[in-house]
C-alpha cells in the first residue's frame, strides 16, 4: 500500500516538474517573440529543410524583409529532403495560425497540391519559391530562377570560351527526372548549341548534387574518354568534385568546367580558378519578393501570378566579349551560404 503511494507521488511530482519546465521554457520563448496581435499580417515560410544554406539564406532574407515591412514571419521547414508530411503539416498549421500568405519551396512538385488548394480556398496567397509545383498554376505565383535560362547562360559561356576547339562534353547531372535538373541540362545544351544525343556528348553521370558523387562520376567519364574538354555541372558541389577528379587526371587546365548556384563556396572556387564560371541565383530575392507580395495582397488584395524570374547572373573573372557577367568580387558580396 505504502509503496503504491510512493510511486504515485513520484509520478505526479515529476509530471508537475515537467509541466513547470515546459511553462518556463515556453514563457521565455514567448517573452522573446512577443504577442501576435489580431490584425497583424502573418507571412508563413515553409522551406525544404533547415540546414541547406540556400534555404537558410532564404529564411534570413524573409525575416529581414518582414521586419522592414512590419509584418510577422513564421518560418517552418521539413526535417529532411523528402519530408512531404512535415511540409503539409506546416502549411496546415500556418492556415490555422491565420497566415495571409504562405511562401513554400515544395519538397516534391505534386505532394503538396492538396494542402495548397486548401490554403487558397481559405483565402491564403500561396507562392512557390525556387521550385515550381506541377501543375505550375496550383499556386498563385512562382518566384524562382529561370533554370532553363541559367543553363543557357552556362552553356553559352562554355562554348564561347572553348573557342575553336572541337567540343567533347561531359554532363554531371543531379537527379534524373527532377524538374530543375531537366531545365538546367536542356538549357545548357541550348546555350552550347548541341542537341541531346549529339556525338560531341561523351557521357553523363548522376551526382545527386553531391561532391563525392560528382568526383566519382567525373573519374569514370575521364577514364572512358580522355579528350573531354567541357564539363556541365548541376551545381557547385558537383563541380568541386569534378575539379578534384580533373586534377588527379592532370587535366584541370584543359577543361572548361562551369556550374550553377551562386553559393559563396562556389564563387570562391571561381575566384581560385577551379571553376571557370558559375551562374548565380538569388534565394534572398525570392524570399524578399515573396514577403512583399503578401504585404501587397494584405493591403490591396492584389495577387501576383505566373512565373516571376528572380534572375541569374554569370559570375566569372574571365569575361568574354558579348556575354554579360559579373566578377567574383561582386559575386562574393551577393552570394549565399558561407
Amino acid at each position, binding site marked *: *500500500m505504502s*509503496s*503504491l503511494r510512493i*510511486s504515485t507521488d513520484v509520478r505526479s511530482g515529476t509530471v508537475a516538474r515537467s509541466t513547470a519546465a515546459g511553462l518556463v521554457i515556453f514563457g521565455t520563448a514567448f517573452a522573446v517573440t512577443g504577442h501576435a496581435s489580431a490584425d497583424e499580417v502573418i507571412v508563413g515560410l515553409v522551406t525544404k529543410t533547415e540546414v541547406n544554406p540556400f534555404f537558410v539564406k532564404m529564411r534570413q532574407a524573409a525575416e529581414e524583409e518582414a521586419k522592414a515591412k512590419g509584418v510577422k514571419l513564421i518560418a517552418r521547414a521539413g526535417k529532411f529532403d523528402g519530408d512531404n508530411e512535415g511540409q503539409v503539416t506546416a502549411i496546415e498549421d500556418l492556415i490555422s495560425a491565420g497566415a495571409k500568405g504562405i511562401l513554400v519551396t515544395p519538397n516534391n512538385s505534386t505532394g503538396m497540391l492538396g494542402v495548397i488548394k486548401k490554403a487558397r480556398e481559405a483565402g491564403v496567397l500561396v507562392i512557390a519559391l525556387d521550385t515550381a509545383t506541377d501543375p505550375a498554376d496550383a499556386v498563385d505565383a512562382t518566384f524562382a530562377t529561370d533554370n532553363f535560362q541559367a543553363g543557357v547562360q552556362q552553356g553559352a559561356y562554355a562554348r564561347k570560351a572553348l573557342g575553336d576547339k572541337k567540343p567533347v562534353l561531359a554532363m554531371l547531372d543531379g537527379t534524373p527526372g527532377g524538374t530543375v535538373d531537366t531545365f538546367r541540362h536542356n538549357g545548357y545544351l541550348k546555350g552550347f548549341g548541341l542537341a541531346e544525343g549529339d556525338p560531341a556528348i561523351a557521357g553523363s553521370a548522376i551526382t545527386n548534387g553531391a561532391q563525392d558523387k560528382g568526383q566519382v562520376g567525373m573519374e569514370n567519364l575521364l577514364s572512358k574518354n580522355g579528350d573531354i574538354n567541357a564539363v556541365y555541372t548541376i551545381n557547385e558541389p558537383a563541380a568541386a568534385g569534378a575539379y578534384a577528379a580533373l586534377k588527379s587526371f592532370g587535366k584541370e587546365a584543359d577543361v572548361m568546367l562551369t556550374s550553377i548556384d551562386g553559393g559563396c563556396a562556389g564563387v570562391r572556387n571561381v575566384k581560385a580558378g577551379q571553376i571557370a564560371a558559375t551562374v548565380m541565383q538569388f534565394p534572398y530575392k525570392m524570399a524578399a519578393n515573396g514577403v512583399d507580395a503578401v504585404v501587397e495582397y494584405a493591403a490591396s488584395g492584389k495577387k501576383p501570378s505566373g512565373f516571376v524570374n528572380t534572375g541569374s547572373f554569370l559570375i566569372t573573372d574571365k569575361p568574354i566579349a558579348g556575354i554579360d557577367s559579373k566578377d567574383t568580387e561582386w559575386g562574393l558580396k551577393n552570394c549565399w551560404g558561407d
Partner: protein
Amino acid sequence: MAAAASGAPVVTAPAGVILEARNLVKRYGHVTALDGVDFELRSGEILAVVGDNGAGKSSLIKALTGALIPDSGEILLDGQPVHFKGPLDARKLGIETVYQDLAVAAALDISSNLFLGRERRRPGFLGNVLRMLDKKGMRAEAERSMADLKFHLPSIGSAVESLSGGQRQGVAVARAALFAKKLAIMDEPTAALGVRETGQVLDLIRAIRQRGLPVVLISHNMPNVFEIADRIHIMRLGRRAAVVSPKTHTMADVVAIMTGAAKVEEPASSGLRASITT
C-alpha cells in the same frame, strides 16, 4: 535397478514411484551440472533435495520439469517415459514448480502472476473467439486461495514488485499449490523468509501432501528439512550421493555426505540404513 547402479543407498518407502529419473546428464560447455544423476519420488512423500551450492539441485529439478532438456538420461512419470519439450508439457501433466528465481513477472499484479500462462477466459464467445480474460473470476479465485494459505498480502491487484521478498515467494508457492495435480517441486521456497513465513510455507507443503500429492523440496535449511522430509536426497557434484531418512541419520551425517567428508558405503541391500564411515 537404477538406484543400485548409482551405488547409493536407498530408503524404501511403502508406496509406488511417481516420478523417476535415470542417469541424467547435463553439460554447460565445460561445466557438468548433472553427471548421471538418478532420482525417485514416491507417492505421498515429501522428498528433500540437499547439496552444496552448485551441486546441481536446480539443474536436476529443471530437467524434471522441462525447463531444461538433459543431454541424456530418461524420465518416467508413473512408470511411463516422458519427454518434456518445455515447461508447459510438465505443467500440463500436473507437475508444478516453484523455481529458485520465482519466475514471476514483477510488473504484473498478483492475480495475473498466479494465473500466468494459463489465464482463465470468459465463457462462450467472448472467451473462445475473442479470447477475453475472465479478470474478475481470476481475482476472486486468487483472493480465495491466498486467504486459504493465510498469506498476508496488501491487495490482489498490487504489482508483485511492490511486495516484500517473502511475499513474492508466497505468490510463487501459492501458484504451485493452486495448480499442482500430480506433484509439486519447490526450489528453495523459504530462502528469503522469516521464521513465521517459513512456517507458513512448510504448513503449505504439508497441506499439499495432505491432498495426497508428493512434494520435492530443495533447501539449505537442515532443521527445516529434518522437520518435514520423509526422505532426503543428497546431491554432490552432479550425482546422487545418497538417499537417507531423517529418522535414521543426523544432520551431521547428511552434511558429511553432502560435503564429501563421509564416504557412503555400498549397501548390502536396499536396507533402511545407509552406513557411513567418517
